[in-house]
């Protein structure tokens, strides 16, 4: 589905991304992890032709991304708030995306009705513009909008950040489902090792723009990743403790099943 070859991005003399070869097959749920500045968002931006590769290319479904616009019909993404139109109500935004993707209003509504739990009654019919929603709710809108129109590739940058625990758990279910049942290629990045290992069949670790690990997710993956990132931290204890704390928090979430699980 997606092949990156000889891909690099440099600013001045600083290389922020350098991937020799990376292939993501159709229907894979693909996780990207790495510390700040590892190149996760750079990679996603290259996938969406938002920045120009310094060398190499990404081919998605036989379309060379920085040369043709033909990848747009089958690719959807939510990277950050710049993918939202602040002065629209959530409904208007969903319909707008629907119209661009050739999905009728009725079909958009039907899709949305499947996300009622996810929205938790805080998105639709709120008489609010997107710009006035909280960060977490904005994120929910952006993520769901990226599912409109049956895209074959869905790209989500840090989808778990800013979401409340219940929503995080639901989102994990949604993403897993998307890749498993609809054959959608899902690309997710996260700082949260627990979340990615739960959701993704494959995890790639970036470090300073280099691909350093490519793991097929197995029960031992989380431990492996934690071991790796404690090593990267190189003795600075802060990393260790924070990931432990995140772990602990996640552990609590998991035992605490959501009251209205789908």
């Amino acid at each position: 589905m997606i092949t990156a070859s000889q891909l690099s991005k440099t600013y001045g003399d600083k290389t922020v991304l350098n991937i020799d070869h990376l292939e993501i097959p159709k229907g894979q749920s693909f996780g990207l992890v790495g510390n700040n500045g590892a190149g996760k968002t750079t990679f996603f931006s290259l996938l969406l032709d938002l920045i120009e590769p310094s060398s190499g290319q990404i081919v998605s479904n036989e379309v060379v991304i920085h040369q043709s616009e033909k990848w747009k019909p089958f690719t959807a993404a939510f990277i950050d708030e710049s993918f939202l139109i602040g002065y629209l109500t959530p409904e208007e935004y969903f319909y707008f995306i629907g119209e661009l993707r050739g999905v009728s209003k009725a079909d958009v509504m039907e899709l949305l009705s499947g996300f009622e739990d996810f929205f938790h009654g805080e998105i639709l019919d709120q008489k609010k513009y997107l710009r006035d929603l909280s960060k977490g709710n904005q994120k929910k809108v952006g993520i769901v909008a990226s599912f409109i129109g049956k895209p074959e590739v869905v790209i989500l940058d840090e989808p778990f950040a800013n979401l409340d625990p219940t929503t995080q758990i639901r989102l994990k279910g949604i993403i897993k489902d998307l890749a498993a049942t609809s054959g959608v290629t899902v690309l997710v990045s996260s700082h949260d090792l627990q979340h990615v290992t739960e959701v993704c069949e494959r995890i790639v670790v970036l470090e300073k723009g280099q691909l350093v690990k490519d793991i097929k997710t197995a029960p031992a993956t989380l431990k492996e990743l934690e071991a790796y990132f404690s090593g990267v931290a190189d003795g600075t204890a802060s990393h260790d403790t924070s990931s432990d704390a995140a772990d602990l928090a996640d552990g609590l979430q998991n035992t605490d099943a959501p009251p209205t699980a789908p």
Partner: protein
Amino acid sequence: MIQKFISLEWKSFIRAASFQTNLAMKILMGFGALYFIAVFLGLGFGSFFIIEKAELGDPFEVVNRYMIYYLAFDLFFRYSLQKMPVTNIKPFLYLPMTKNQVVRFSMGKTVVSFFNWSHAFFFLPFSVVLITKDYDPISVLGWHIGMAALIYCNNFINLLINNKSGVFYVFVALVLGLGAGQYFGYFDMTLYTAPFFNWLGSSPVAALLPIALLLILSRWAFAYFKKYMYLDAGLASKQEVASTQEYAFLNRFGNLGTFLKNDIRLILRNKRAKMALYGGFFFLFYGLLFFTGAIEVYDGPVWKIFAGIFISGGFLFNFGQFVPSWDSAYYPLMMSQNITYQDYIKSKWYLIAIATAVSTLLALPYLYFGLNAYLAVLVGGVYNIGINAYLVLWGGAYIKTPIDLASGKKAFGDKQSFNAKTLLLTVPKILLPLAIYWGVSLVASDEVAFASVAVAGVLGYLFKNKVFALIEKIYKTEKYKTLAAYKQA
């Protein structure tokens, strides 16, 4: 503490995105500032002699008579333009400093604002002229101090009424009503206000009154700010009640309708875009300067075309000029959604073309000034649609200044959006049709010259698809730079 504040302020000034524009821009802005200073200075030195020459009466008294309007306009401009100091307060709230210090500093900031000291360019020279003209120096000094106090009163009134648009609109209505009353001779407000200003000018003690008022207002503003310095009170951003609008009648236009719907919402729901629309509307009245013969220089027939371009192109110049910056906040979405460039550019073109057509229709009352006047508007409209609509889109590819939709405050002052390339592109927008008209009128009649400008517009329209392809190419090459620039908002 105060040094720290000042150093922060200095950093925010020199590191602001607008400050770090290119040199040409700074020079242009410098000239702009100099121009206004020159105008004020000219007024300050000149108004005494102008009034004297026009034999309107004692210049000092004439100035005093209209001073109330001066102050009203000052307040109006402050309300629409002066930035409130509250935006930068948030980071200080939880730091170890007293609220008094923070409030004092942010109010102090407004005291040194351009909106206050720029008046000195008028009042200082005017007072000097008064003294040289043998007015009592002490009285003039008292008047001067009193006026300064009143200007500063405006500063604090503006702080107090900011974001109370209700109060502001009542004020505007009042001033407009009183102004009209005076103009049509029903009621002369100045009869009641002039004595006050004259009293300021005659007895120096009177200056104490404005000073007292200033003290009261500043105490009041201080208390007000301190009281509302909470995130959910004075520092909260206003939330509007939103309702979903369908505009279903636009659905029949397919993808184009989708964008038009969005652009209508953009204009109706964002301060900055709304102001562009109003600005465009005011351009409709621009022609009055030309066709009424109010300004002699504008009487030549070439200037009729000039007027036509502006009357029909209000929206084009105010809104179209800043495409695609209006979409800057969500440009990455536009660039990665299922939209081709062609569609995006076309939709903007249609928006501009439709608005230009509507403006041309709205200008029908110019028929009052004769068929020729309206023909000029019509020709201008055709040229705007046929040529200028492309040019603004073309220029837009080079405008890389993001627009903050929510704030209406900067609408006038936002000069950053100019750069050398866009300046160059304004030349054909205005000068080319004038040149065509002028050139043809040398060898043929005025009618033929009119027609040839219109033909240029029609020709431009016929090559639509070719031009779109060209513009698309430019947008594509500029895309990454534009995306990067919008990110730095």
